């Protein structure tokens, strides 16, 4: 076993002796844009004004602004270089596998970007007359129809801006429905394996969160739910396949339990990449669910967003959908219907992240029924291939049959002082983005791995090889792992110090 100082003395070559997927390359430094600014540089130019100039001081008086403080002044080439250099510091799907569990980092086809930028799509104003919005409405209608079919539900709203926003909308539908039945109820059941947005959303709507423990297999326990269920409970929020990547085989039974006592079954659709074309939530008892177009339907993550979180639901919830709703007129043209007296109201301005609808629909059209099914099959195959490849190297906390993702734990490595985050960081040296480490909470030290369908066997083999090498390093020289990453332009940041005295903006020194 090497010691800390040995690591320091190890040459780059030694450190990277097993790294097959990456090397190091010169990488440009770049200051903050404010540090490059100087008065008189400019990247802008306006067309000459074709109307009379105005005296802004006279028009605006005291509220006129004359100074924009520290806003930058730079030229166009400096902007191109600034953001190009910054971009080269990022990992991306376009560069390699992104095995973030629960995030479904799949290929983002460039045709989606191209069609979203067509004049009539990109430059359509949300309030332009419907007579010149038929193309946009058609996109919304066909996407809605496709998503309804894919989920097996009865109806849908595209308005929510992301998954969490969809959860909010979906739970509001539940609440409005129950209220219309006389009692909105008080609680929402949430498994301990759930993503953080589930409890956070329930709280936002004013529901108390009652956590339900997973059973020893990490699965929902119908008996426990039965026990927790009563007339105070509005709904249960289930992720299926769940966050350990396993299909909740008792899902229909759980639906029955909920329905028997007047509650509803909400499904977090983050893991729909395991089901599209193979099984439909509407068929196994789900009443309402959200989809993440930025996961399952390939719209790009963009460094954190934008997303889109449509909510599909059963007929009983339809009257409560947010306004407006796209409907077809007898002549086949489309219109936005605002006249929905029981609606929960709007959850955001306009109609949702329309640009993402275009991209998601382009994805569906590129796939068709056969492609969608094949995609799901490949996603599940890939996860199982990784599971097989890493079995014996990492501890499988729960052994249920994996679907689109597999969750290991750092149990073996933790004994040697190496945590999931260390392994994640070392994976960076091997040319990969790490897996998800932050959850599910039911797996201590989780390594949550979701390859998606977008990885070739070659890339998976490199990943498995890297993970095995790291397992070996943990045995032989754990400091190499706990000290990682070594090959990046910055090493681990002191996050504690950053949070203790947060510096959240640049100020001139």
């Amino acid at each position, binding site marked *: 076993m090497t010691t800390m100082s040995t690591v320091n003395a190890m040459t780059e070559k030694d450190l990277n002796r097993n790294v097959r997927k990456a090397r190091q390359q010169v990488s440009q430094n770049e200051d903050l844009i404010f540090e490059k600014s100087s008065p008189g540089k400019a*990247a802008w130019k306006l067309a000459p004004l074709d*109307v009379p100039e105005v005296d802004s001081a006279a028009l605006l008086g005291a509220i006129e602004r004359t100074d924009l403080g520290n806003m930058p002044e730079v030229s166009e080439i400096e902007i*191109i270089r600034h953001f190009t250099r910054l971009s080269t510091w990022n990992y991306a799907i376009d560069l390699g596998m992104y095995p973030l569990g629960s995030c479904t980092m799949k290929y983002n086809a460039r*045709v989606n970007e191209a069609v979203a930028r067509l004049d009539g*799509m990109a430059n359509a*104003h949300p309030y332009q007359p419907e007579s*010149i919005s038929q193309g946009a409405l058609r996109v919304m209608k066909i996407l809605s129809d496709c998503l309804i079919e894919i989920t097996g539900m009865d109806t849908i709203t595209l308005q929510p801006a992301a998954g969490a926003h969809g959860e909010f909308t979906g739970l509001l539908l539940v609440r409005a429905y129950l209220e219309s039945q006389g009692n909105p109820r008080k609680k929402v059941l949430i498994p301990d394996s759930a993503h953080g947005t589930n409890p956070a959303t329930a709280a936002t*709507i004013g529901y108390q969160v009652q956590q339900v423990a997973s059973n020893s297999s990490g699965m929902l326990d119908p008996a426990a739910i039965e026990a927790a269920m009563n007339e105070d409970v509005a709904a249960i929020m289930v992720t299926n396949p769940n966050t350990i990547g396993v*299909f909740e085989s008792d899902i229909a039974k759980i639906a029955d339990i909920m329905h028997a006592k007047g509650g509803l079954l909400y499904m977090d659709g983050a893991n729909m990449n395991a089901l599209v074309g193979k099984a439909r939530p509407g068929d196994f008892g789900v009443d309402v669910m959200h989809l993440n177009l930025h996961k399952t339907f390939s719209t790009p993550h963009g460094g954190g967003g934008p997303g889109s979180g449509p909510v599909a639901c059963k007929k009983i919830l339809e009257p409560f959908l947010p306004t407006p709703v796209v409907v077809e007129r007898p002549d086949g043209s489309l219109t936005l219907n605002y006249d929905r007296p029981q609606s929960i109201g709007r959850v955001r301005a306009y109609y949702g992240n329309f640009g993402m609808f275009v991209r998601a629909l382009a994805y569906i059209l590129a796939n068709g029924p056969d492609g969608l099914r094949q995609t799901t099959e490949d996603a599940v195959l890939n996860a199982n291939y990784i599971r097989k490849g890493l079995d014996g190297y990492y501890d499988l906390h729960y052994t249920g049959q994996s679907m689109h993702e597999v969750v290991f734990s750092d149990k073996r490595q933790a004994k040697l002082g190496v945590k999931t985050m260390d392994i994640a960081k070392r994976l960076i040296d091997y040319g990969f983005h790490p897996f998800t480490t932050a959850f599910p909470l039911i797996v201590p030290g989780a390594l949550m791995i979701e390859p998606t369908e977008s990885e070739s066997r070659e890339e998976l083999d490199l990943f498995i090889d890297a993970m095995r090498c790291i397992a070996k390093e943990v045995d032989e020289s754990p400091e190499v792992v706990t000290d990682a990453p070594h090959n990046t332009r910055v090493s681990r940041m002191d996050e504690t110090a950053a949070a203790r005295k947060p510096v959240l903006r640049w100020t001139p020194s």
Partner: protein
Amino acid sequence: MRYLPKSDSDRHAMLAEVGVSSIDDLFSCIPAEYRLQRDLTVPRQMAESEIVQWFAERSRENAEGLTFMLGAGAYHHYRPIVIDALVQRGEFLTSYTPYQAEIAQGTLQAIFEFQTMICELTGMEVANASMYDASTAAIEAIMMAERVTGRSGAIVARSVHPEHREVIATYAKYQGVPVSEVNFIENGRVDVKALEEALAQSKVACVLIQSPNFFGTIEDVAAIADVTHKAGALLAVSITEAISLGIIKPPAEADIVTMEAQSFGVPLAFGGPYCGVMATREKFVRQMPGRLAGQAYDKQGRRGFVLTLATREQHIRREKATSNICTNQALVALMATIFMTVYGKIGLRELAKQNLAKAAYAAETSGKSAEVLFPGAPRFHEFVIRTKADPVEIREKLLKKKIVGGLPLAKYYPELGNASLWCATETTSRAAMDAAAEAIR
């Protein structure tokens, strides 16, 4: 399927490696009765050329090459080419939320720059990495004010964008947040007296106004802040036209500023994705929703950036989080950052000034045959006119010239009669404005 990097023989080899004989074995965990035994009824698989053609047809159905005199919270501005050139780089487009700082410094530094620019423009001390849009940012501001003040409820100006008020109503209703409205006076501004009285009656957490408001009128923020703060409430100011900050003083008296940054280089895209902004005072930062990038150093002392103060967020704090927001509008915020960088300190002001001049001209020419409402208070680039003809008809008339006219307001403010809300930006030609004035006649 052409996105899938596998041949059938790869699949067979992998199945063998996994130790199953067919792919369906991997789906056997799904109870048989729920396994779909048919094709989904979605359109057949298309070639890329067909997809492009299909959307091009939809695009044409949507009409192309329009001039907009329509704003109402979504504005048509020129988008510098560098924006799309840069945000389409795969390293920005196809990267995830920058949790792994060592390979996400590009996104992190850009967010830090975004936060800084938003602070500079709004006069606030901290800004987050983005919210979904201005409407959800507004309700988050109200909820945040509740956390900060320990009080409940808000008074919202009726001159706030009607759809934003609808969103607030939706959120408020189910959370038991009492929300009341305060009306506007003849000059289009908030009725400060009425606000003062309302504040005296109920100890609300927050007053929410919009400036420039829905009518394009700039509010007297200082006066409103005064009565609000006297009543112990926080003032949240919403800005739906970010360009206005180029020539209008920021609402520095506010406690929270929310904003729609769509005007900063983001396509109209039929209403989204846009970019909500939230900024506030440093002392409130721990009650703020959303992601924050902060400066940090590595062991070698090299400066970098990380997502910080995550204990506010759902993935750490779950039901006790400041908000449930997770995915935000990162790439759109990057567009806005690039836009702000292109125009910068001087250009943003000049751009705003052109907008001011264009709208002044448009209001003046329209005013010759219609009544321009809300006189006596300054406007930015929108104005309301009352016409003899039904605004819907005027719109139809103008559409033939590929000009999208003002928004009829009857639906939102029936008391204003045949009123409509018009907008002029640097993209509105004098010819279009003259044509509009003609159509109004």
